[in-house]
């Protein structure tokens, strides 16, 4: 599970994260919603250790995330980047097998078996030998996801998983998210697509002036960046969280 306590981060003179408290348990899917530029991606990046924080504590499964030390997590926090960031010179199979070999110490055969298994699961069994340049957007996303899953993460962070794909693919991404839920992975998704968010979330939150706002509560009437808030609110409409997993932070 993820535990963020009083996290502060300043960027370009403003508090991008202003005392963020967040807990996400295993198997729970939390969606961070809202207009771009509000710091949602920054929150993902500090949880994964890619960026440092100015104050506060972050821990994953009781392991502290040291400021800016992504490597020390050894893949426990999987990050699905918005533009996938696949290794362009390696084929799909090698992309997935690289980290298990280098970090977990698996031998080549075992790593390739694991990679091939994941590709099969995700419907890419015949694409193992393809280079990233030869894959479609959806296929690249699944390879990137498999690359994270090969490290058996307890937390998955998804940065705008629908923005780089055709709108028609949203349901396929939702299927990937439900797979993560089935595997009991704590998932945080950043999305500017409120319909997608509503579809997959157990809990929906937003960042307002660097503070987390639980969307279960009354919508705050404040002046948010880009003014898309009224549209988000309208789109949420009849959404209600699933009662079993509805847990307030």
């Amino acid at each position, binding site marked *: 599970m993820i535990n963020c306590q009083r996290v502060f981060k300043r960027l370009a003179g403003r508090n991008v994260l202003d005392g963020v408290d967040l807990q996400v348990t295993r198997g729970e899917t939390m969606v961070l919603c809202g207009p771009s530029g509000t710091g949602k991606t920054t929150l993902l990046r500090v949880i*994964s250790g890619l960026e440092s924080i100015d104050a506060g504590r972050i821990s994953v499964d009781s392991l502290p995330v040291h400021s800016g030390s992504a490597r*020390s*997590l050894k893949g426990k926090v999987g*990050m699905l*980047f918005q*533009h996938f*960031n696949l290794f362009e010179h390696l084929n799909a199979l090698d992309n997935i097998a690289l980290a298990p070999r280098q*970090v977990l110490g698996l031998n080549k055969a075992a790593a390739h078996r694991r990679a091939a298994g994941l590709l099969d699961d995700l419907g890419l069994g015949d694409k193992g030998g393809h280079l990233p340049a*030869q894959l479609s957007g959806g296929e690249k996303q699944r390879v990137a996801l498999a690359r994270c899953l090969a490290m058996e993460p307890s937390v998955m962070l998804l940065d705008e998983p629908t923005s780089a794909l055709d709108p028609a693919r949203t349901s396929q991404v939702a299927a990937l998210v439900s797979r993560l839920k089935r595997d009991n992975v704590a998932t945080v998704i950043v999305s500017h697509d409120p319909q997608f968010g509503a579809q997959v979330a157990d809990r929906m939150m937003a960042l307002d002036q660097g503070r987390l706002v639980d969307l279960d509560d009354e919508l705050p009437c404040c002046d948010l960046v880009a003014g898309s808030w009224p549209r988000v609110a309208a789109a949420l409409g009849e959404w209600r969280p699933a009662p079993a997993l509805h847990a307030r932070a």
Partner: protein
Amino acid sequence: MFDRGMPLQLYLLGNFPEGLLGGLALNVLVALVAFSGSFCLGHGLALGRLSRHRVLRLACGAYVELVRAVPLLIVLFWFFFLMPILLQVALPPLMTALIALTAYASAYQAEFIRTGIRSVAPGEIEAARSLGLSPLATWLRVVLPQAHRHMLPTYASYFTSLFKDTSVLYLVGLVDLMQTGLIAAERAPGRMLEAYATVGALFFIVCWLGSRLASALERWLSPNTHPAARKAQRPHPSTPRRPSQENPHAHA
């Protein structure tokens, strides 16, 4: 009868095997050794310029910029004047020339390597970090393979350029292809044209082969940017990311 004023063997091999290696073989050998050595040193300089430590960054940067700002002849002078003073013993001219040329080429190689490294998407390095790869593993498995692949045509092209640069070495006393031609022209003034034609032709052959290799490498790496390959394009657009490459002979 095409009389070069000297046997062709002299142009190609110098006095070898009776004496020292000379002629075209000397140029090729020096170019190969200097290219290999500078490739290794260039990595050190490139990584130094990208280092977190300010002193290292400035030192490597200063070396690269200074060497690229002066002619090869000046670098040769430096080594030929400095080495006897530093070492208190006279090195054979070939050795000094090799060291000087390697030091000169390292600055250029460092820039190519640095361009290549910068052409690798920073997102991939972040992905490697988030997967837990160590810095060394990231360099060896993710960054350098791609950096070198992107810059292969530039390396091939630079080898050709370095080979042409070796023609200057006769000014410091080596009997290379250029010197052989000049000696032939001097000994038989009536045959000057043939001598120059031979020298020119031999340089041309090696350089032309080098530039064909560079073009072939470029086509192999980016099949869809080459006009001939565009006719047989695959359905998925699949141009690998290429860095914009600078003229390898240019400064700045």
